[in-house]
């Protein structure tokens, strides 16, 4: 494919910054966790399933979500913890779908293990629900073809990559990451777009994800 094909629309890189907002809601056992999970703002579900990606960005991939961590480390419910940790977030295109999956995993476990519902966390180790407030900003980075796109992708912050890959797909409900959408619809390279879409972004650190996407596009350009 000719890397110099001009896109119909330039790609505009955005970045985003997160501010955690406290809800004042807390759970000290599984029953309470479940009850609040069903009602809490989608921004809280998003926060507790994505916080580790940025706060522990230097760590190995596959970060745990907060629900899995609390259920395992505080309540000692290892089997449920493993179930929650292995929920494949990339399979869900909306927060609501992700919420339903988490809720049903806990409900199923409680049905099989009713005693687990009232096992209580020690004081100070309750689960505190927090929401992510996202502030989205345009950056000065834009790209009109794939070469420029790769160049700019090397320069933008990991927050920008985070926004276009995770936040746009799941939180803004676009169903796909912004990179794949642009490469497919504006550059016309559906094969490269599909390859990026098929990546499990949760399996990489953010810097590794940057390198992987660059490698995928560069590989297509060479062909």
């Amino acid at each position, binding site marked *: 494919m000719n890397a110099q094909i001009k896109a119909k629309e330039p790609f505009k890189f955005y*970045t985003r*910054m997160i*501010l*955690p*907002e*406290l*809800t*004042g*809601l807390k759970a000290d056992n599984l029953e309470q966790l479940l009850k609040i999970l069903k009602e809490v*703002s989608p*921004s809280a579900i998003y926060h507790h399933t994505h916080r580790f990606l940025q*706060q*522990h*960005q*230097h760590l190995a991939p596959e970060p745990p979500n907060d629900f899995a961590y609390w259920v395992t480390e505080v309540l000692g419910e290892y089997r449920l913890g493993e179930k929650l940790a292995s929920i494949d977030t990339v399979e869900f295109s909306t927060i609501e779908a992700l919420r339903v999956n988490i809720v049903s995993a806990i409900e199923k476990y409680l049905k099989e293990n009713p005693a687990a519902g009232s096992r209580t966390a020690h004081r*100070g180790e*309750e689960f*505190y629900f*927090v*929401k*992510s*407030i*996202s*502030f*989205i*900003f345009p*950056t000065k980075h834009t790209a009109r073809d794939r070469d420029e796109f790769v160049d700019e992708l090397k320069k933008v*912050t*990991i*927050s920008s990559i985070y926004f276009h890959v995770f936040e746009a797909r799941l*939180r*803004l409900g676009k169903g796909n990451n912004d990179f794949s959408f642009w490469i497919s619809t504006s550059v016309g390279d559906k094969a490269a777009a599909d390859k990026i879409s098929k990546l499990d972004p949760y399996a990489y650190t953010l810097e590794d994800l940057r390198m992987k996407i660059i490698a995928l596009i560069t590989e297509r350009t060479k062909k």
Partner: protein
Amino acid sequence: MMKIKDYIPIVGKFIVDDLRILAEKLKSKKIQHVNSTAVGGGVAEILNRMVPLLKELGVETRWDVIKGGSKFFDVTKKFHNALHGKDEGLTADDFEVFLETGRRNEQEMDIWGDIVFIHDPQPITLINKRTDNKWLWRCHVDVSSPDPTVWKFLQDFIFRYDSAIFSAPSFSRQLPIRQFLIAPSIDPLSDKNKELSQETVDATFRKYEVPRDKPIITQISRFDRLKDPVGVIKTYKQVKKHIDSRLVLAGGTASDDPEGQQVLDEVREEAQKDPDIHILLLPQNDIEINALQAGSDVILQKSLKEGFGLTISEALWKAKPVVASNVGGIPLQVKHGYSGLLCNSVEGAAYSIKQLLSNTAYAKKLGENGKEHVRNNFLLTRHLRDYMLVFLSLYHPEDIVCL
């Protein structure tokens, strides 16, 4: 004075670029910080660093300090202890002293900010001067289980603010106003945290006559019961049964803390003139604190309650192994077994210290992990970003804000 560009080698250009983007959005706003002391304690320390940087970024910022006599600060110290759950037997007179000083400050202080940023309970009554501007209340203390009388008294003021800010999720409760989670921070370029020469470290230990002939366990904190200095000595005595070591217990007192001398006397009594226990009443000398941390083998923070515990981030930034109580904001900084060890008792603290002193490779790894954790989450640049985001949130109530 540090410039914002000086932080680039530490946090990267991207982070500093983000700060510039945010500051641009706040160009038309005037920010007025108000607290109760210009020197001593974590709040003054952060504001001393943050205010000049906000100004350099183009955000018009000023920091004002309320006035109060010794009676007022005796009462606010009681408030502080009561917010940490202690029964202080506050009387109607105490509350009147607090309100009277508040009224005087309301008369004397000029409120000019578009955003008025009140730190801690001492200046909280200034909300009486609210007009059509925005008001933030920043709580720096652990209010997870406060004395209900004091909380109820403060609550009537808190509810009139636009938003509140707490340092840990466990300090939150359901409030009718928005509340944000913002951890405090350390400044990696300050005298307290910059890298020192070995010569400076050695000279400080010589100055305070602390021989470095055996492992050194250090707690740096004000002489305050909530920092449990007596518990620190008990912990050390248990460690010393098995590992010959020294204890350095070093700190000063804040100008708004009238209890310091009394606690210091209790600590000296507990130490019983053990020549390996070094109780150092330090003047405000950040280089010396830095040197004591840098030259120690294990840093201890055995607080009973803790607003956040910035000494932990200071120690981790120096890649030191840390043993710290599982209270307040400490678990945000120390992930047990990854960036330090958490404890809940004298026995637990002693056990963890022995583990670290006996396994130096493990201790080193915890310290290195801790340093990266601080770089990502507890440096001044992250704190500046979060404050600017809170300022913006005052004008944007939605969860996803497109600017």
